[in-house]
């Protein structure tokens, strides 16, 4: 079997070579070969030592007996492992104005996004019949932008493609699957729309629905309205003469593929009851349902398997965020259990035969993603399944299995190359290919593997803040780093207080703090980069002109 396969691959490579040669003007830089690497194809057995050939954005060949074409740029893969490019199955990447990430512990795709919602209302669909939040016609395709720090951070840990969905709403709108490179939105999109997205957060500001009760009724009523709209259009098409013309309605029109079961619906649901409710609603309207979040999905595994509902499982694993305080209430047993059991969900779903894919789920630090995957492996998930949950499973669930998710000839050349195992503590992403092109990645701040560089920022820093028109100010920043999490406080002429939304990812440091500028308390966002024991970057203050800062160490952690 391997022989037949490799022969086939050789044949197809040759074919492609000839085909390529005829297009004379194509630049040679389109062709790459990673040689002598271990290849985790996902679709077939692992190739211990082989070559992957990339040409014209696609995988041209992969196998033990493949030789690098003469025009290929050769990357010596000795000691490296090539995986299909990782797919993050639920993100808000490439959407404008990324808000500071909410604190972790809320878990999954669900909770986190809702916090953002109040700050950032998407622009409403033009001429919509519905208020913002109830506009299924909204498409991320229309608003995504290439580039940005978040996309870079994701690529640095080997994410090559992502489902990106609207940030908020009840009918949130329609998502797209994008490659995390490209200079235009058009180049990024692999598939759009992928799915309709539903969140269960009530509208704020006094309008209906203002509670979870009303959210369900609104979803129901709009789906009933869409059914009637569809039927009315059919009747009108049949006999426009003599029938009163149905009013056009973009919102209801967008729901027709949903109620017809043609477009999947992703519902944000984490707890057992949230998932059960979503399953009930899905069954009531015969929807093609996908659950996103899924923290307690293992508790409804039977129903998920039976109704064939896949889960986009968040790796934003909950953990205690508070310090010890002797006089505090003991945490409820339920909460203690939830945090521990969330680590086992992936393994249990795999055993129960529930289809799932991993997602980062509004994680503070995207660099936790692989470390948290390791935790799920330590808690019962097979490593091979963990790889699938980042590759072929999301591809299948999101309908791009012919384009992405495995190392097979003809698929899009998204590849993640590592030294060491992908989920190993000492593993490291060395190369990332997206659409057949290598992308620059930056190694983690401390050198070493994922999650290393522990405590590297802890200590006291002297920060020189230079604000336009206000001269320089020197403040003291005290930082505490635990893994990739960051906390601490500032003090000095700009005021004193805790920092929030703090993160460090691959050397990118980011935090916000309340500062006193021109007699007013304002929110300042610091984002900088760690290099040579110095953090340099920009300060953005709401309502003020921006500035820069440089932080140098003034003390080690005590």
């Amino acid at each position: 079997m391997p022989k037949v396969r490799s022969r086939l691959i050789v044949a197809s490579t040759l074919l492609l070579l000839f085909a390529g040669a005829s297009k004379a003007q194509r630049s040679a830089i389109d062709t790459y070969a990673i040689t002598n690497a271990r290849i985790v194809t996902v679709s077939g057995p692992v190739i211990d030592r082989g070559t992957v050939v990339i040409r014209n954005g696609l995988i041209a060949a992969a196998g033990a007996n493949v030789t690098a074409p003469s025009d290929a740029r050769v990357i010596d893969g000795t000691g490296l492992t090539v995986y299909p490019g990782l797919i993050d199955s639920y993100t808000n990447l490439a959407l404008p104005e990324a808000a500071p990430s909410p604190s972790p512990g809320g878990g999954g795709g669900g909770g986190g996004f809702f916090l953002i919602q109040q700050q950032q209302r998407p622009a409403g669909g033009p001429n919509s019949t519905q208020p913002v939040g109830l506009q299924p016609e909204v498409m991320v395709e229309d608003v995504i932008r290439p580039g940005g720090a978040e996309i870079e951070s994701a690529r640095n840990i080997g994410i090559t493609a992502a489902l990106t969905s609207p940030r908020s709403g009840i009918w949130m709108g329609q998502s797209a699957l994008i490659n995390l490179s490209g200079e235009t939105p058009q180049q990024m999109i692999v598939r759009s729309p992928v799915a309709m997205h539903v969140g269960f957060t009530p509208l704020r500001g006094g309008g209906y629905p203002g509670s979870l009760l009303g959210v369900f009724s609104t979803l129901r009523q709009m789906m009933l309205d869409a059914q009637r709209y569809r039927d009315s259009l059919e009747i009108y098409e049949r006999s426009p003469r003599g029938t009163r013309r149905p009013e056009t309605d973009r919102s209801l029109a967008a729901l027709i593929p949903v109620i017809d079961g043609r477009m999947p619906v992703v519902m944000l649901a984490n707890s057992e009851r949230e998932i059960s409710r979503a399953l009930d609603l899905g069954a009531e309207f015969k929807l093609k349902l996908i659950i996103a979040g899924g923290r307690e999905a293992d508790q409804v595994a039977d129903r998920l398997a039976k109704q064939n509902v896949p889960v986009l499982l968040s790796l934003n694993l909950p953990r205690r965020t508070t310090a010890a305080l002797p006089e505090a209430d003991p945490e409820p047993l339920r909460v203690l259990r939830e945090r521990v059991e969330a680590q086992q969900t992936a393994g249990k779903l795999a055993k129960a035969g529930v289809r799932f894919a991993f997602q980062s789920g509004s994680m503070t630090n995207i660099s936790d993603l692989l470390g948290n995957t390791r935790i799920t492996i330590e808690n019962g998930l097979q490593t091979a399944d963990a790889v699938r949950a980042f590759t072929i499973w999301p591809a299948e669930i999101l309908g791009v299995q012919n384009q992405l998710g495995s190392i097979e000839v003809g698929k899009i050349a998204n590849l993640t190359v590592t030294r060491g195992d992908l989920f190993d503590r000492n593993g490291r992403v060395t190369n990332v290919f997206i659409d057949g092109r290598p992308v620059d990645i930056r190694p983690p701040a401390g050198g070493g593997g994922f999650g290393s560089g522990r405590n590297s920022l802890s200590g006291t820093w002297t920060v020189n803040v230079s604000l336009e028109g206000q001269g320089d100010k020197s403040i003291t920043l005290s930082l505490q780093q635990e893994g990739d999490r960051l906390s601490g406080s500032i003090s000095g002429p700009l005021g004193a207080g805790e920092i929030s939304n703090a993160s460090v990812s691959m050397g990118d440091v980011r935090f916000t703090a309340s500062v006193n500028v021109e007699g007013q308390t304002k929110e300042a966002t610091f984002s900088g980069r760690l290099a040579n024991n110095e953090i340099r970057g920009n300060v953005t203050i709401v309502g003020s002109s921006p500035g820069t800062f440089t932080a140098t160490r003034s003390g080690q952690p005590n």
Partner: protein
Amino acid sequence: MKRFIAKLLFIAIVSTIPLNASRAQRPSAPETLIRNATVLTVTHGTLQNTDVLMRNGKIAAIGKNLSAPNARVVDGTGKYVMPGIIDCHSHSMLDTINEGTLAVTSMVRTQDVLNTTDVDLYRELAGGVTTLNLLHGSANPIGGLNTVVKIKYGRPASEFLFPGAMPGIKFALGENVKRSSQPNQPGVTRRYPNTRMGVEEVIRDAFTRARDYKRTWDEYREAAKKDKNLIPPRRDLQLEPLVEILEGKRYVHAHCYIASEILMLINIADEFGFKIKTFQHVLEGYKVAKEIAAHGAGASMFADSWAYKIEAYDAIPYNAAIMTRAGVVVSMNSDSDERARRLNIEAAKAMHWGDLTEEQALKLVTLNPAIQLGIQARVGSIEVGKDADLAIWNGHPFSVYSRVDTTFIDGEVFFDREQDLARRPELAKERAALEQAEPNRPRTQGASPQTPRRRPSKHEDDDVEVEKP
């Protein structure tokens, strides 16, 4: 000896087979025989030294010296057996109680927001409660749809639903609806209605629309027989339940306090030809007991919560007794996760304040609420053929010193005091282990955890909107 061991093994294996098999498909409840207890049947008096046999989830036999060789036997000597208490006004296990943005929210359904893990349910089981009428809050003249549940704590939500219970809806009148306790805010338009007159208008308007809606559909169905190209009218989830009320298919549970608004609602109901099934709270009901009885409505109330708000100033503790004597079906409800644990005492108060008989008082929390929810054929008394929903008390349930030993629903144990106590060391051990687990360890830095504080609870008339975590 060897043969003996083999035999033992064989028996052991054989006897585990059916057990495992039945566990897989959730067996019907095990057979249980309560021996030699005092049985408060509610409908057939108090029976001394009596046995109660539960089989297949039903009460199979009541009598002396019953024989049931396969049954688990519970010694009831010195104990009391009482039907499971039915709480006709509860907001337990609801993730959210009010959809307060509109004055008419008949499209919302409490069934959509059930939380089967609410610990209050377990506490209610420990108070001998087995059935709840889960109502929408009282923010709107016409609120959301109710859900009647058996407290099958630990089971999926679908198993909670009381089979065959009449669908219901919450109405509300008075202070909560007109938002009189909420201050005016500059720049914010108050939601209509703001007066009791407005409340009446909102309800009349809604039923007028419901009547038109029904007519539109009736006309469409008639016309669609001839014309296949007719576009059907819009389905309106707000009006459909109101049509059901007009057709007598849905019970109205109306939150109210003062006599005038009670008469107002009776008049609207008469005008549109429907019935109010229960007046809830109804603290001035004694003033119009005759009219309520004539309408055929029930009353579900507090025993003694007088004067806690303006509407409640005229409340008297004799309300239940006066209305019972006027021929109204009366029940005592909790409207509170805390009070729900001691509804037995709420019923007992009616003996103290109004000289009801013991049986009349028992009915206030058993058969009468069952009637008010249309489930009296299945629960509310201890009779052969009814659901085995009952509790064993260690003393007479009307004594403040009594407590529940075991609560059964459909013949299955959902609370057992001994089991609960026995599990505690095990839970303490689990907690200790969990607290050591990595995700549960306190951070060296981070926000302070919550320090002890008063547990928020919902007030008796569900005005306060406390959402449970």
